[in-house]
């Protein structure tokens, strides 16, 4: 479904993404596990096509089509979406309005329930600074669930989520996957990566190995947690 070939991003002469190759299959939850500063969010932004994230090399193929030059909207219309690590807050835009942008069937309440939020309590609130970070992130997930994308890029979906809501969030991701969405799950948490079918290890802007969640977690623990190189070419 998603093929990333030799992707590169240089900023001010520094290689941030350094010849990255990635394959996400149809119906797959593919984890990307990496330490802080290895380029996880940058990959998410490059695949979604955000401004200031134009690849300096390589290409991104989605369902066989080169989407490297596509705008964010064009990619979204192809079925790709992104749940931001720190989602934007928009004054005057209610949760109802926001979810309605994504939901094709208009049944938006169920998506809030899937992330453990009571629709009556939240539906008419603005997605502004009055929401806590965790509440905003759960609404972001609900919005992605409502969109039923072909590919959901989830950037650190568990950060800022409390232990009560986390299992609901994981269930939501798995439910979305069951309904046909592929998921690119970007995380620094081995626990979170466990729900993936395959997990790739990211080091200094490059995928250095891909395996089962167990294999990759072990490798990550034994090698990455003590490794000093961040944004330096991997050896």
């Amino acid at each position: 479904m998603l093929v990333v070939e030799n992707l590169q991003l240089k900023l001010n002469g520094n290689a941030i993404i350094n010849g990255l190759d990635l394959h996400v299959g149809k119906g797959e939850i593919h984890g990307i596990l990496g330490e802080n500063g290895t380029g996880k969010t940058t990959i998410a932004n490059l695949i979604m096509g955000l401004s200031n994230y134009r690849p300096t090399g390589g290409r991104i193929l989605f369902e066989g089509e080169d989407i490297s030059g596509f705008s964010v909207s064009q990619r979204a219309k192809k079925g790709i979406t992104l749940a931001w690590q720190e989602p934007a807050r928009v004054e005057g835009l209610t949760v109802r309005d926001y979810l309605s942008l994504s939901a094709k069937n208009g049944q938006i309440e169920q998506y809030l329930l899937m992330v453990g939020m009571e629709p009556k309590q939240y539906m008419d609130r603005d997605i502004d600074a009055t929401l806590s970070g965790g509440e905003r992130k759960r609404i972001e997930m609900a919005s992605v669930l409502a969109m039923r994308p072909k590919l959901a890029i989830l950037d650190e979906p568990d950060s800022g989520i409390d232990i009560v809501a986390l299992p609901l969030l994981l269930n939501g991701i798995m439910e979305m996957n069951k309904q046909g969405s592929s998921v690119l799950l970007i995380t620094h948490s081995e626990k979170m990566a466990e729900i993936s079918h395959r997990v790739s290890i990211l080091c200094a802007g490059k995928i250095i190995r891909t395996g089962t969640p167990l294999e990759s977690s072990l490798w990550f623990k034994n090698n990455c947690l003590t490794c000093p190189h961040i944004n330096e070419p991997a050896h």
Partner: protein
Amino acid sequence: MIRYSVEEEYRGMIDAYQKAGGDESVLKSKDAAKLVVHENRVLANDGIKGLKIDTEKTASGVRVNFTVEKGVKIDRPVHLCFGLLPKEGLQEIIMKVDAQAGSEVSVVAHCIFPNAVKVIHKMDADINIGANAKFDYKETHYHGEGGGIEVIPRAKVRVEKGGVWQSTFALSQGLVGKLDYDFEIFCLEKAVAELVVKAYGRGSDDIKIVEKIHLDGRGARGMAKSRLVLSDKARAEVRGETYGNAPYARGHVDCMELVNGNEAVALAIPIVSVTYDTAKVTHEAAIGSIDRKQVETLMARGLDEDEAVDVIVRGILK
């Protein structure tokens, strides 16, 4: 100049209001108090127990005395409807408001100028909010796409001990034209004032906003908030001034001006002052383009860029 009959004027005002997105039932309702003025002619004046609306025709508008009697709490909003249907003209509203002690009322003013090519609409208001009274004032303008209108609302508001003044001025339908808004509020002990101005400037709109709050009584509180979005060659200047002149006064100035494009110009001038060490006045002003992350968040849900900007603008001006 074309002259309209009273019925035609009334029908024309309601039609224009409805076309601009207003709910005509509020102007037709027999249960709610309302005043409808076209140019300098009063087309409807329906009072309610505890509320007196006296009017006097002047050469260029009307003089209105609006009195809410002591302790009277009016459940349903009172509707004021001012407007001009012809392309040219002047309407001056001279308003005196006396919300007596302990009263509560919500007033919704609809100002309708659908055909304006050369129209001036002025309001001079002298408002007194009695002790522990609560007055909520919302003014919404419905302009056409001609932009040939000059709107000059001026108000001096005195809020007595424990009283509350809340006002929202919104101009987001049609072109603004020229707006020169100047509200000055004086808050006595434990009085509260909240002012909100929202406007969407396009074309060559010229917007000037002054929100001035004097926190003169112990424990008085005030907030001056403005939200402006500017496109094309629109210009806006916002002055938010708050003076903490008494112990434990609390004030805040909150100004956001978003500029869409390279030709619109936004200027914010916040002034905050305190003269007591226990008083505190804060301000925040944000001027700039529409936040890229907000736009891309909505684009990632399938909206085109223009649609995303539109959703954000409508949210800010809501």
